[in-house]
């Protein structure tokens, strides 16, 4: 159930002051909520129908409807500048050998009232418009339609079959069928005597990919081109053959309208469409898409790059990392990344398993005066090897309902423990997560330091402090007293295909290697080469 903030009677609030209080509260909560959302890409990522993002000479390129496209040095900050001749709609790009093949369409889609349309393919040696090698050649018609047939010849997308090297092109819209044709990978021209196959209905902006013996056909369902009211969303079906039939997770063929959901609107982003697969290697996969409307950018259509997860053989759209305060949990051990500082016990106020009040325990020779074993301290009741209960058992053995009122116990606060932490660098280790201050990490995007496909770099600090996780020159990790913004204090966080995360410093001082946070021991982190097959390199972010 939701309430309008103007429906004050429901809250029994009388008077303008209460309205102001409510309004301020709502705005504050809204502000906090917004601050926890991942933002779409940085810069000017304005585009519609983006092509599959393609790396060329160290830069990322994508091209959109109407001509031109976007360029990025790091996959995070984007700007215009890419050049595509021909105008038209919905291009796609694939690199084969030393050529970048480009496909796009002119006409169709019901635009200007018509469906007559043509799909073209051309190629260039580079996507860099400033390069002397730049220039599209051999534009050729590979598919077309007129108003008589039940398909549009637009929204074309490549698939280079990794199993046999054959090149395929899907295209089409809601107006009839999605079709599949075969091209010559050496020329980009249509294979002689190739007959188009119908492989889906009720979608547009298709893309295809292959993984583990399955061919996947991704399409976009819903309504396009209506800004914040667009219902665009991405679906998928799969087949053992590239030619289909493509079937969804409940057995409905895409030729009958099937499609398993991959990604839908969320947060401030409305209308996801035009899937493009990005395999970044080492088990990191992402996908590009456009939002019909980014509500934080005046509702304009923008590019985004998001993690691609795999669940039971199906692609699932992940979310880019959201800032917040987290436990950083090792997938290896289930333990949490923490400062290597003395553990400080909370007062033993609970009755727990044994019940009964804290015992007036006798002093024990050799018991240190520091920290926990202050057995005679008020409220302290460390686990005991002996006590008034006799036979080594604590008092009140057995279950017993609380005698007094049941109260909420505050968790240990930073101010209770941080004053005893060393002022300088502190080692990092992995330990049982106990929701303690030395285990809670606030992860915040850092402005103006660049990023990587889909996200900015983050700083990782102990919550409530400026103590920052940093890589060292000997490829270990420490917490430095103050975040300075130096490169070894910036972290890349990529969600992996299983939903866990890879955490990587921007640089390791004195090293050119890309190393990632790794649980080299059950309780010991380090920096090491990423092993996609090992849980040592995988981490989870849990809300404490």
């Amino acid at each position: 159930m939701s309430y309008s903030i103007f429906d004050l009677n429901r809250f029994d609030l009388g008077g303008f002051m209460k309205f102001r209080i409510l309004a301020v509260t709502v705005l504050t909560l809204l502000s906090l909520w917004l601050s926890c959302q991942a933002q779409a890409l940085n810069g000017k990522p304005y585009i519609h129908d983006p092509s599959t993002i393609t790396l060329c000479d160290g830069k990322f390129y994508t091209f959109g409807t109407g001509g031109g496209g976007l360029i990025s040095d790091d996959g995070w900050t984007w700007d215009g500048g890419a050049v595509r001749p021909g105008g038209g709609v919905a291009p796609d790009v694939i690199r084969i050998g030393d050529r970048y093949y480009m496909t796009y369409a002119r006409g169709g889609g019901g635009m200007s009232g018509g469906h007559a349309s043509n799909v073209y393919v051309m190629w260039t040696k580079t996507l860099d418009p400033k390069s002397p090698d730049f220039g599209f050649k051999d534009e050729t018609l590979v598919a077309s339609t007129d108003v008589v047939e039940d398909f549009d010849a637009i929204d074309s997308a490549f698939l280079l079959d990794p199993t046999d090297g054959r090149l395929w092109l899907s295209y089409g819209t809601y107006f009839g069928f999605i079709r599949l044709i075969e091209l010559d990978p050496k020329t980009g021209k249509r294979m002689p005597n190739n007959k188009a196959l119908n492989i889906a209905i009720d979608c547009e902006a298709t893309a295809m990919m292959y993984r583990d013996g399955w061919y996947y056909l991704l399409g976009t369902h819903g309504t396009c081109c209506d800004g914040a009211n667009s219902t665009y969303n991405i679906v998928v079906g799969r087949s053992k053959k590239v030619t289909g039939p493509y079937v969804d997770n409940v057995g409905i063929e895409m030729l009958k309208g099937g499609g398993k959901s991959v990604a839908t609107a969320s947060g401030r982003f409305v209308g996801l469409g035009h899937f493009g697969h990005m395999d970044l290697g080492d088990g990191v996969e992402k996908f590009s898409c456009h939002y019909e409307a980014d509500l934080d950018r005046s509702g304009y259509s923008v590019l985004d790059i998001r993690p691609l997860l795999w669940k039971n053989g199906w692609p699932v759209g992940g979310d880019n990392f959201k800032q917040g305060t987290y436990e950083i949990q090792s997938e290896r051990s289930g333990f949490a990344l923490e400062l290597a500082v003395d553990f400080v016990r909370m007062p033993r106020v609970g009755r727990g398993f044994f019940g009964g009040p804290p015992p007036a325990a006798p002093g024990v020779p050799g018991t240190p005066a520091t920290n926990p074993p202050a057995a005679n301290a008020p409220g302290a009741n460390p686990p005991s090897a002996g006590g008034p209960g006799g036979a080594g058992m604590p008092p009140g053995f057995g279950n017993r309902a609380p005698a007094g009122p049941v109260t909420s116990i505050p968790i240990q606060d930073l101010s209770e423990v941080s004053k005893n932490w060393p002022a300088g660098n502190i080692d990092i280790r992995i330990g049982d997560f106990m929701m303690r201050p030395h285990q809670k990490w606030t992860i915040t995007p850092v402005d103006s330091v660049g990023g990587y496909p889909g996200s900015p770099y983050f700083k990782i600090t102990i919550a409530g402090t400026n103590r920052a996780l940093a890589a060292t020159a000997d490829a270990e990790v420490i917490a430095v007293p103050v975040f300075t913004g130096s490169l070894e204090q910036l972290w890349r966080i990529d969600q992996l295909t299983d939903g866990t995360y890879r955490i990587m410093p921007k640089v390791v001082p004195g090293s050119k290697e890309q190393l990632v946070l790794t649980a080299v021991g059950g309780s010991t982190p380090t920096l090491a080469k990423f092993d996609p097959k090992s849980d040592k390199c995988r981490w989870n972010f849990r809300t404490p």
Partner: protein
Amino acid sequence: MNRKFYEGSIMNISSNIATLVFCVLVVLAYESSSAASGGAAESDTIRSIAPYFTPASSSPKAPDADGFLQRWMLLEPINKPNRTNTVFTDSYIRNAFDTLYFPSQFTGVPRDGQKVTVAGKELSWHAVESSNFNVKLFRFAYGLNKPIYGVLFWAVTVVNCPREMKNVRMAVGSNSASMWWLNGKEAVILSGDRRMVMDDCVSKRLTLNKGRNIIRGAIINGPGMSDFCVRFIDENGDPIKDLTVNLEAGN
């Protein structure tokens, strides 16, 4: 709950009660038997560190198939009462292990049978080979009729390397807390109420010298089981096995 003392989970309450009752009956029977015989319990007379340990031989010994070091010089336990293992913070164990209990504590390699005196008590070094990947200190102390709880153990071994090995790590598991040194330098510390798990805490990247390398460890325990395991691993986490251990070489 102190898992070591109670050795069980909350789900095992009824089991624990049954165990408690059983133990009481055993103790009563034992006391009755002792009173009847008028001497030490029979079980005390047959205590042994076998089958957990055998005497160390003089021939070089390779690590086991997983790289664990099984040949050690162990000192009989030093009395160090602690009724709980939760006291073993980093500060506590650093202080406990920085304390000098006997001469040559941080230097040299002891001989089998060599004796030291700690707080007026004479303790012996034993050159042993563990039958398992881990070194069961509880069984070592129990088998020698020494204190089993509230104790501090010292362990020393000598690893011989055929060549210098860089970027290796000492990987340790211990019950409870422990601290380890390689050639006199601190290598790894295991604080808290720990369970022994292989590769639990791992040192930073180290260099093993060509020839002799002295490994020294101190393990502290309050109540419950006590043991440790040590091996060296390479950059990929794989065990380093082309080493030998020969305690005689340290004499």
